[in-house]
């Protein structure tokens, strides 16, 4: 558990920095990839790792510090994505990339819908059609494109922190 917590801080911090400096500037229509969510989801999809919920909480709080979106939106969005990842990891463990794509798709949809409703209800009414075509679809596409490399990197990290036990 300690290893997971110690690894979470630098990895998520790096992901947040890369997100704000690079990923948020690579825009497709009006959407951009959510690198932090991909990292959290990829960590949640590793079988042997621990502290996946801590990763979810840490990521949501760190992103909430830099974002104008209320902190509870990221907390709900990231933790539910982690929960989905843990649910799928035991069921489709033989196809980790399929699980990654599935959780990325559903997690992105859920987070974007949460932000959409939060902004529409509490700040300014937004047009759903415009949001769907200009933000949701491009963001999903970008997230799916980044899902494979992020999953590979996090899998390597998980293998280093939790080496696979070998039988003699």
């Amino acid at each position: 558990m300690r290893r997971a917590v110690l690894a979470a801080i630098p990895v998520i911090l790096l992901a947040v920095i890369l997100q704000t400096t690079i990923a948020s500037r690579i825009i497709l229509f009006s959407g951009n990839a959510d690198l932090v969510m991909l990292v959290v989801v990829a960590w949640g999809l590793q079988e042997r790792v621990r502290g996946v919920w801590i990763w979810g909480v840490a990521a949501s709080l760190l992103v909430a510090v830099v974002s104008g979106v209320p902190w509870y939106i990221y907390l709900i969005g990231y933790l539910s994505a982690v929960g989905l990842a843990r649910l799928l990891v035991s069921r489709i463990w033989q196809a980790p990339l399929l699980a990654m794509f599935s959780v990325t798709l559903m997690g992105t949809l859920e987070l974007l819908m949460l932000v959409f409703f939060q902004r529409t209800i509490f700040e300014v009414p937004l047009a759903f059609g415009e949001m769907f075509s200009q933000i949701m679809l491009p963001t999903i596409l970008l997230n799916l494109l980044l899902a494979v490399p992020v999953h590979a990197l996090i899998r390597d990290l998980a293998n280093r922190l939790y080496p696979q036990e070998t039988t003699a």
Partner: protein
Amino acid sequence: MKSRFPRSLQTVVIFLVAIGLVALALGGYFNPVTNWLTRITVNVQTWISGRYLAIVDFLTVPRDVASLRLRNAELETDVAKLQTQIIDLQQQVTETDILSALVDFARANPEYTYKAAAVIGRDPSPFLRYVIINVGSNGGVLPGMPVVTEKGLVGRVDAVIAEAARVQLVTDAASAVNVRMQTSTTEAMLVGSITGDLSLDMIPQDANVQIGDVVLTSGLGGDYPANMLVGQVVSVRKLQSELFQQAAIQPNVDFNRLQFVLIITNFKPVDIAPLIETPGP
């Protein structure tokens, strides 16, 4: 055996034949022969010279290739260093140009005090048009302060920590700025959108808004200082069935390429919320 000709006569005959040959040569009678001989000689010499140089090259080139490779590697290293320097210098020139323009803007508007800041990030959410700047409360920045560049209004400070601040751009969907046309008294509301496009709303139906009209902040509401440049009208939508006209605005600031901004630190936003009546129970 004794020769039939005396030795002296032989000498004379040989001499005469030699003179005759020289005379014939000088007269050009041997030209075809000499040309043929010369051509053969030159060809042979060329062939031998070529082979010789090839052999010399074969024996000496390996050493030259090694030295050339070394020299090439040195030069490539130098080129890479110089290219890095060029990129650095170009970056510095660009930054200097931007900062110089900001300084010019500050000089042209001496009624305000400014704090320069670099844009270091953007909001992670695609719904929000916010940027993060590298100056915070330690630099005297407070929430609500207007943010500008030399090209016009950028937004206002939304949240502050010690060493950084978050700025809500005027292109954000939740942003609303009171503006006016430069050439008339027409006032309107500048609103952003989730796509980052700017538009004018609440333009009275009887107002004469033309494409190309320059839009400035009006200062109403107390959120922004007056007469800050925003952009130009690019299209107008006027429907008799609607209460107000609408117009699309081309902002003067390129919000996708913001590098440096100025925060107006001596502008105190006015909170008019207590003056707005709320419906009673």
